[in-house]
């Protein structure tokens, strides 16, 4: 709440000095008011349960850009979020240096540029859906890092290519599918992305990797116990750190009357609690200005490494206990495979505002978590419908 007051104060201070400030300060921001409900009383999804809620995705953000010189500027984004799972405060703060119009360096805290819409995920106005497909956009990853990035834009007559490379680190809690929180650390995490854009087509391919470590003391303790009992193979498999890799490919095709979007991601991870994930979505949309109609199909597949059989049963009660402990760990690994089909409409009733409505049919995997927070496991059939309405505003 304090952040919201601070932001409102800043808003008024800056708008009252708008004229003198406008030469060196750029003030802008965005806001969403999103209301939604899930039609199932046995679980919740992305924070939405059987009641009507305004506080899962609603937010207000202010972005300030101060031009220190012709080529150097400082940008900060302050965000106040309605959900308990998101911290409100300084979202990013970085320095930008543009030696030429085509080259840009950034240093500081910035959003991780994993997927096509990663760096504008909170700016609902920038994309057609209310929630970008969760199978891709909510995949166990950290959404900001502290580091440096460099980008270069090449423009030819018919097309353009943008290259971006970054390296940085992260040390904070990650919210996994809105259901659990883990402390995680990433060091020397780097990535490279290439964006090809022509008249109607945009293709973005990127690869990212780095040393990632989750802080799970119970797992480390159990792993040491296994090592003491000489079950080294099993002990080694219970890793909470390793080099994770993420590959992404996104395509957008825009015609005046319709558009197609597709994105695929693949995550491979040696870390036990982060599975190998393949996710994708396909969106088709129809433009009838000021309306946009769209339909999206999304799916993901989640797989963990096979369970090892190094520990024998029936040798002794102590070894049985170790085997049972290992088995329990395996059974508690969450499978967030879920299929979804969404339809939605967006109405741009104003140059900087849009109203959206969206219906998402979710079909999870029997007996698995599937991104749901399940309150009644016996009665829940892993199918639910999510209805959301949103008002988006950029200023």
């Amino acid at each position, binding site marked *: 709440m304090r952040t919201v007051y601070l932001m409102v104060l800043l808003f008024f201070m800056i708008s009252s000095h708008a004229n003198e400030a406008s030469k060196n300060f750029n003030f802008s921001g965005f806001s969403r008011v999103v209301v939604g409900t899930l039609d199932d009383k046995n679980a919740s999804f992305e924070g939405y349960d059987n009641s009507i809620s305004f506080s899962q995705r609603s937010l207000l953000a202010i972005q300030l850009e101060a031009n220190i010189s012709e080529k150097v500027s400082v940008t900060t984004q302050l965000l106040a979020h309605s959900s308990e799972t998101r911290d409100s405060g300084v979202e990013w703060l970085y320095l930008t240096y543009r030696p030429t119009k085509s080259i840009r360096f950034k240093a500081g805290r910035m959003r991780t540029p994993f997927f096509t819409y990663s760096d504008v995920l909170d700016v609902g106005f920038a994309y057609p859906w209310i929630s970008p497909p969760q199978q891709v956009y909510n995949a166990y990853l950290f959404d900001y890092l502290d580091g440096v990035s460099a980008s270069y834009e090449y423009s030819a007559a018919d097309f353009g290519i943008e290259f971006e490379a970054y390296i940085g680190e992260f040390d904070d809690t990650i919210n996994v599918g809105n259901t659990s929180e883990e402390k995680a650390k990433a060091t020397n995490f780097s990535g490279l992305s290439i964006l090809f854009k022509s008249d109607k087509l945009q293709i973005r391919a990127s690869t990212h990797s780095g040393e990632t470590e989750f802080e799970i003391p119970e797992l480390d303790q159990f792993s040491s116990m296994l090592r003491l009992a000489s079950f080294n193979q099993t002990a080694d498999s219970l890793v909470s750190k390793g080099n994770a890799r993420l590959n992404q490919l996104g395509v957008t095709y825009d015609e005046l009357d319709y558009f197609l979007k597709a994105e695929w991601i693949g995550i491979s991870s040696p870390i036990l609690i982060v599975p190998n994930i393949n996710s994708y979505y396909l969106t088709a949309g129809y433009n009838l*200005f000021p309306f946009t109609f769209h339909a999206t199909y999304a799916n993901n597949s989640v797989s963990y490494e096979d369970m090892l059989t190094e520990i024998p049963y029936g040798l002794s009660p102590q070894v049985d206990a170790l085997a049972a402990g290992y088995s329990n760990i395996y059974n508690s690994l969450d499978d967030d495979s879920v299929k979804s089909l969404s339809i939605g409409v967006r109405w741009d009733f104003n140059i900087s505002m849009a109203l959206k409505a969206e219906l998402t049919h979710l079909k999870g995997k029997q007996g698995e978590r599937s991104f749901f927070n399940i309150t009644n496991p016996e009665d829940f059939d892993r199918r639910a419908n999510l209805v959301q309405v949103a008002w988006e505003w950029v200023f």
Partner: protein
Amino acid sequence: MGVGLLRLLRFLCFSMLVLFTSTIAMAEDGLIVVANIKESNVSLSKQQIRGLFMGSSVGYDFKVVTLPPSSLTRVTFNTKIIGLTEARIQSYWAQMRFSGRKTEPRVFTNEDEIIDYLLNTEGAVAYLSASTIIPKSLKVIYRIDSI
């Protein structure tokens, strides 16, 4: 209640107007892209113009400015050159602005203001309706005639 309904009707009328007149605009007017540059024989391709107005650099140090979204010339430009609806273009600029990549061109209220800015700013470039009478010092770097 009455005021809210009036506002809603006005928005609906605006959108209907844009839909309706965009077809008319396309049928009547051509477009010219005009710049305040020294060279006389500069001519850009449609792709380059599109790139320019979407924030890419095309080799010259241009300062891009545009007409407001309510302008029919802008609707024609969006349809014929950019190939996207105004809503999609606004989403694009929001994405560029809030990812710190590009800032949208400055928006002027009408053609007179734009011509004034063009005359006084070196490197300024804007699109106008082909029937606009432009000062001789400004160069036409792209043209589509009326359809």
